């Protein structure tokens, strides 16, 4: 770097000047490539996760530092529900996900997918599948859910593998009428997606979302009033 300060006199040999030129050029190229990769990786990590991860997955930002996209979890799943995201997929390129409406997690007791993970992106030490946090079910279709319409469909409640804990039926008065409403308890819900899979209407009224998307959080809105 000392050469930088010197005026371009004859003292600097041709060779040295050439070296300086190439190193400046290399540094520039490095900076640009770094910036490009940094921006791309940042936007990948910063994007709100849309896809459901296999059980035991680290939270999304740590997951992208750990998942090498090898697909060993995909192969380990006995129900073949997992896929690796393609370029146009719902998750970052090559990372594993499943689509609840197509094929929900069956919550295997021995959690083979997490055990198969070689890097720790999925917690291979997890012993209790009920502690999994793949997402959380949210009853989104208040206008379409049959229970809201006064029927006792309740299929989501009946298929839930964490029966009676993750979804309960609560009596509510809606438009002055008594209704039995399926109600999700986020602390017990594993996000397996069985409810979404079995919802009887054309587009599921209950859906599993990644937890940050599916849940609110108490406290002051950081982008709201600052007073």
């Amino acid at each position: 770097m000392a050469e930088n300060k010197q005026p371009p006199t004859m003292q600097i040999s041709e060779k040295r000047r050439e070296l300086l030129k190439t190193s400046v050029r290399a540094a520039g190229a490095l900076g640009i490539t770094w910036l490009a990769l940094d921006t791309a990786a940042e936007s990948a990590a910063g994007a709100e996760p849309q896809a459901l991860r296999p059980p035991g997955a680290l939270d999304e930002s740590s997951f992208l530092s750990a998942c090498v996209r090898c697909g060993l979890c995909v192969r380990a799943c006995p129900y073949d529900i997992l896929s690796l995201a393609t370029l146009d997929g719902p998750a970052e390129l090559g990372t594993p996900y499943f689509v609840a409406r197509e094929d929900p997690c069956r919550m295997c007791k021995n959690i083979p997918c997490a055990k198969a993970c070689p890097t720790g992106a999925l917690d291979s030490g997890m012993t209790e599948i009920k502690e999994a946090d793949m997402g959380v079910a949210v009853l989104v279709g208040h206008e379409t859910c049959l229970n809201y319409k006064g029927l006792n469909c309740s299929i989501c409640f009946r298929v839930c593998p964490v029966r009676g804990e993750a979804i309960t039926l609560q009596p509510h008065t809606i438009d002055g009428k008594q209704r039995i409403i399926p109600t999700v308890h986020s602390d017990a819900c594993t996000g397996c997606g069985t409810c979404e899979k079995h919802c009887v209407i054309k587009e599921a009224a209950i859906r599993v979302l990644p937890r940050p998307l599916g849940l609110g959080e108490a406290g002051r809105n950081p982008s709201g009033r600052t007073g």
Partner: protein
Amino acid sequence: MNESVKPIAKAQKKERTGWHSWRWLLARRTAQIGLLFIFLTGPWLGWRIVQGNFASSEWFATVNLSDPYIMLQSLLAGHMLSTSALTGAGLIILFYLLVGGRSYCSWLCPVNIVTDAALWLRDRLGIKRDRAFNKQTRLVILIASLLASVTTSVIAWEIINPVTLLQRGLIFGMGMGWTVILGIFLFDLLITRHGWCGYLCPVGAFYGIIGRFSRLRIKAVHRDACEQCGACLRKCPEPHVIGPALRGNDNSFVVSGDCINCGACIDHCPNDVFELHFRPLAWPTADHSMTEKTPR
């Protein structure tokens, strides 16, 4: 393409033809396609030989092998890898220290099949346009990917890495990934000869660093028989590595980590100058700029 540029009288140049000039190429293709097939026996036939892909795989449900470049990025991104992944990466490094770092490129990497196809078509169509880059560009991209892994806590190169994209796509489903591969094919075909592998791919650059210290190397054993016909230089994807072996004072090994051990020089030399040999553990290297390990 450019008709003003006439091909230099190639007919007079010597080089071996016939099936003898295909032996190493055939062996490489067999290895590349064979390995892919072994990976595919899992999803296709349900055999449990190997699960996973090049990023990380499990062989016979016991041994893990992992890509050291991806594992390094993961470590730099701040993730403490499990021992099985670290051991797997160590085994791969040892393997390539033995057989030559960039043997990965020519014997395993599926993108090599794509870029070789582009090269074949380029020569067939007589496309002369060749926008050259600095050979160190891939090293710059390699370093940038490591830096970006640190700054973003994401395994940075895996956002786009065409090598794993293609291999993973073939085993797990390609989706729109073929567009990236097509892009590389067209780049190699229309813009730069050996463009992707020769200048840009950081995976090759990483294995090239291992290659500087690796044992199995091309050797110009019978360099006295060299007639300077240039067949090796025309066929070699990294022609700058051959000169020191043919004319260097210190030894007749190809020492540069850039050599991909593809055997094209062995295939095409009409005088059988080249052979594949294990290089001795300690030796004076002809390439001081590359291995500045020992003080002179």
